[in-house]
């Protein structure tokens, strides 16, 4: 059975709410995304090439990190009633296949006038900052 999204109503959303989601991107997800996107650039699929350019191995597609952002906002904060209005992301350091990572999000602004919430997030693999950014979501009626 698939995970069910968290249902938070407007009055439950408060600045300072946080969520942390550990994740790991495996080879099968890389293969699936390569087929889906048509992106076969060597930095993502060729270990020898990646190492020759100073990386430890093939670099995880940035969009797969973005996919975890979709999971975070759609399933957890704000969850089931949220509709994305903006996402911004900076990629700071490479994430490698099989590397343990964690997505940390915090609600930083609740806008009564637009019924939207703003989230800041950071993605870490150990001490390494992988990505950071913001996500805005409009909350739909129950």
């Amino acid at each position, binding site marked *: 059975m698939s995970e069910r999204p968290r249902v938070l109503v407007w009055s439950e959303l408060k600045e300072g709410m946080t969520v942390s989601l550990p994740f790991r991107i495996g080879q099968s997800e890389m293969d699936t995304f390569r087929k889906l996107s048509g992106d076969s650039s060597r930095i993502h699929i060729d270990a020898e090439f990646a190492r020759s350019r100073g990386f430890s191995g093939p670099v995880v597609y940035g969009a797969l990190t973005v996919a975890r952002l979709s999971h975070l906002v759609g399933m957890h904060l704000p969850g089931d009633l949220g509709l994305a209005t903006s996402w911004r992301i900076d990629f700071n350091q490479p994430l490698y296949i099989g590397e343990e990572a964690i997505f940390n999000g915090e609600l930083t602004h609740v806008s*009564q006038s*637009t019924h939207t919430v703003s989230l800041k997030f950071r993605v870490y693999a150990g001490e390494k900052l992988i990505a950071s950014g913001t996500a805005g979501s409009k909350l739909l009626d129950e």
Partner: protein
Amino acid sequence: MTDEEIYSRLTPIFRDVFDDDTLTPHPEMTAAEVPAWDSLSNIRLVVAVEVEFKIQFSTGEVAALKNVGEFVNVIRQRATR
């Protein structure tokens, strides 16, 4: 806070939200003269202004605004810094 200061802080927000580096907000400006100003970008604009000026608008206030000049009037009344 002066209107000049408000406009100087609004300009980068407008340029960012509407993705137009030539945009300069002025009192008579309306959504009709900015092609990218739609309902979703309006949400991004209002939220960005709330965050920048550390204020909250009410739903009624936002709905009643007729142009940028009225927006600035509300910001001036609310903003403390």
